[in-house]
């Protein structure tokens, strides 16, 4: 689609890169934006001189760009270092509200990334909360229809993956919201959008979530950036995870007053250059067009499905949605790590293991899997080496 925009492929022309769900490569515009930032670097928000003012303006412009990218307003965009930080911020702060009591419940799903589940496990221990799980349906997607059976008047939050990083299933968040509305539940919905925001258009206005997080490095932006979006009304009462400089109105000996969101949640000097790079990445994606990205991923994923299915011994895990660009599989009699190592030795880059989703693998009854994941630079030419490699591997192990 746009492979020439990514210098990685000129440096590594032999690589078949199929690990974009782990991290994406960066287009030249992002690399250039980071370089330009360093060449004009200054501390932001506090310097009373031109370079500081200009970089501060650029930084805040990225907030507007990020807001526009997901249909939000800038005041609702909090820069984090990654999605994990955003998820921890919420699991730390939400239960501190007076309305949360010991014995309240939080729902997660077995398909969730560890970054969704673990912060709530810790919060459950700290606050005496009860953690409940949505299971998988017969297709291996999160079974939203079972939500009613575990939802209660004590359910305070539902933290859930939008696109499973392992199963490639898409969670119907508007449907989830409908179920909550029908049941009269005011549970807060937190969406992990790491694997969705890079693949298809998202508008928080119609998504049904109250909070949403994603990481920059999975979105063609530098590592060290992430976004936490929250409804303005909810952010205003949320306490910060980190406290320190650049987020206070007044500091006393015993008490201090904090700035309103989003600054309240951005204590300390940020990774300014990475945020500038994030802005460039979002601008780049907007230029390509997220609907075009979705179509590219969809068409290519279908081609991968067609050519992977006949590979001997290969079983595709669950029923991945082609828009996700994620296909996990196992090979009969060959451990996932051996598959990935064999392919890696041929410069075919895939992921193997539990992909930070141990519970999803347990629910699917497999110890580990191999994941192929697509990016906007993936092409149909990536398929043949993968299929040949997997076929050769099968014959190596099975004679």
């Amino acid at each position, binding site marked *: 689609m746009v492979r020439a925009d990514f210098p990685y492929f000129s440096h590594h022309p032999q690589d078949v890169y199929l690990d974009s769900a782990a991290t994406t490569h960066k287009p030249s515009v992002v690399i250039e934006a980071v370089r330009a930032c360093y060449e004009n670097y200054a501390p932001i928000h506090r310097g009373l001189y031109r370079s500081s003012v200009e970089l501060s303006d650029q930084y805040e412009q990225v907030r507007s760009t990020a807001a526009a990218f997901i249909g939000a307003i800038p005041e609702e965009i909090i820069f984090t270092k990654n999605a994990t930080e955003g998820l921890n911020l919420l699991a730390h702060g939400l239960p501190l509200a007076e309305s949360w009591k010991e014995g309240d419940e939080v729902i997660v799903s077995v398909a969730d990334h560890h970054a969704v589940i673990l912060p709530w496990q810790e919060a459950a221990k700290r606050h005496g909360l009860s953690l409940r799980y949505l299971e998988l349906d017969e297709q291996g997607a999160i079974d939203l229809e079972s939500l009613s059976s575990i939802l209660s008047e004590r359910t305070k939050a539902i933290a859930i993956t939008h696109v499973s990083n392992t199963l490639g299933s898409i969670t119907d968040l508007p449907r989830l919201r409908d179920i909550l509305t029908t049941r009269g539940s005011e549970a807060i919905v937190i969406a992990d959008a790491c694997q969705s925001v890079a693949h298809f258009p998202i508008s928080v206005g119609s998504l049904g979530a109250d909070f949403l997080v994603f990481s920059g490095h999975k979105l063609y932006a530098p590592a060290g950036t992430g976004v936490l979006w929250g409804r303005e009304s909810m952010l205003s009462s949320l306490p910060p995870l980190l406290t320190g400089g650049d987020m206070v109105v007044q500091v006393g000996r015993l008490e201090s007053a904090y700035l309103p969101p989003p600054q309240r949640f951005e204590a300390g000097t940020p990774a300014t250059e990475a945020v500038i790079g994030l802005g460039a990445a979002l601008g780049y994606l907007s230029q390509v067009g997220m609907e075009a990205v979705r179509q590219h991923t969809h068409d290519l994923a279908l081609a991968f499905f067609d050519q992977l299915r006949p590979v001997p011994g290969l079983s595709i895990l669950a029923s991945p949605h082609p828009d996700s660009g994620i296909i996990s599989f196992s090979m009969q*009699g060959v*451990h*996932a*790590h051996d598959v990935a190592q064999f392919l890696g*030795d041929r410069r075919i880059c895939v992921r193997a*293991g539990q992909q930070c989703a141990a519970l999803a693998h347990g629910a699917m009854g497999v110890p580990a899997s191999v994941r192929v994941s697509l990016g906007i630079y993936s092409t149909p030419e990536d398929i043949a080496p993968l299929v040949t490699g997997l076929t050769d591997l099968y014959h*190596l*192990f099975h004679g």
Partner: protein
Amino acid sequence: MDSLYQAEIIDRSQHPRFAGPVPGATHSSGGLNASCGDVIRWEIRISNGVVEEIRHQCQACAICTASADLLAEALTGVPTTALKNVTSENVLSALGISISPVRMKCAMLPLSALLNAV
């Protein structure tokens, strides 16, 4: 660089000689590599200071399984003092292949689990 998967390694992983439970085991232990899902269980029968029988039950990659099987073969019939003194160098020597840093945890899971047993 398919040399990691030499015939010996694949054969050991597909047809391990020392897999299964040990009747009358006096020692046992388990090991888990959480990031990749590899699981191993050791069962050992020690009598009069000698390893009479040692077997593994692996749900793991070829490197890990081959490592366990070669370890079991090397340790069958040896004094327990020798068992306690097995090193990672011994394991790598038995495997006879070059292990990358990423796969080192696969190769060493059997050894770390074994040392927990004794």
